[in-house]
């Protein structure tokens, strides 16, 4: 049904994607394919993979603490489903990172007009690690981090 609906649009952008998504929407898998492969070092407490991904997504690694409220459990008994949420008054872009998995980037959100950056997701964490949320507020970057202890890893175990 989606294909029929899509073909009916008759737009030139037809060739690019077969999805009922807005032509203007920024799909970071297409726009920044490499950021998703930035790796975390398998070293305890190492956040360099996160910092590299922050720089790649936002164009800068100058990030201040504050402005963003991050909620994640102190202890996650099931690493396959770790609830993470964050909230701030306004932002143009927000991204979530963690140091527990092979790659550091989890998700990127562009906040559309009328959007309110009060979001929640459930993520996988292979082991204990740090979750970091970074937000771009009028060109300035802010972050909040939380260490989540994982008792049963969630990436295949």
């Amino acid at each position, binding site marked *: 049904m*989606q294909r029929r609906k899509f073909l009916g649009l008759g737009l030139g952008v037809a060739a690019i*994607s*077969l*999805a*009922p*998504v*807005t032509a*203007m*929407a*920024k*799909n*970071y*898998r297409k726009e920044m394919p490499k950021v*998703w492969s930035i790796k975390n070092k398998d070293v305890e407490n190492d956040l360099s993979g996160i910092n590299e991904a922050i720089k790649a997504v936002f164009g800068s690694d100058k990030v201040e603490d504050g402005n963003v409220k991050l909620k994640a459990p102190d202890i996650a008994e099931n690493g*396959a*489903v*770790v609830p993470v*949420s964050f909230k701030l008054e306004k932002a143009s872009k927000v991204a979530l990172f*963690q140091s527990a*998995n*092979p*790659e550091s*980037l*989890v*998700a*990127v*959100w*562009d906040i*559309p*007009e*009328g*959007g*309110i950056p*009060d*979001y*929640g*997701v*459930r*993520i*996988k*964490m292979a082991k204990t690690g740090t979750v970091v949320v970074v937000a771009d507020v009028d060109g300035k970057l802010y972050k909040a981090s939380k260490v989540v202890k994982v008792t049963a890893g*969630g*990436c*295949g175990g």
Partner: protein
Amino acid sequence: MRIKAKAKDGVVSVKAGLKHEMLSYDIAKKKGKDANFIVFIEAKVDGKPVYEASTSQFLSKNPFIKFKFKGESGKELEISWIDLKGETKSKKAKIK
């Protein structure tokens, strides 16, 4: 896909349960399958985007998402996603 959207004081709160295996590269390898997971989720009201997320293999299986935006009840919310293989799914729900 299950969607719950409620408006209060001009703010719509949405909770949505998407159905997807979200097979990460590691797990897919172990199972001898191709990795496949949702890479982009979008929500629209009246054709205008109210939520956009580019996502990775690290979202849990059958991703559950929560988000908010400025809006009112009676309008129709449409949530769509596309995965690594290019498959898409879409569902509409009325904002209560």
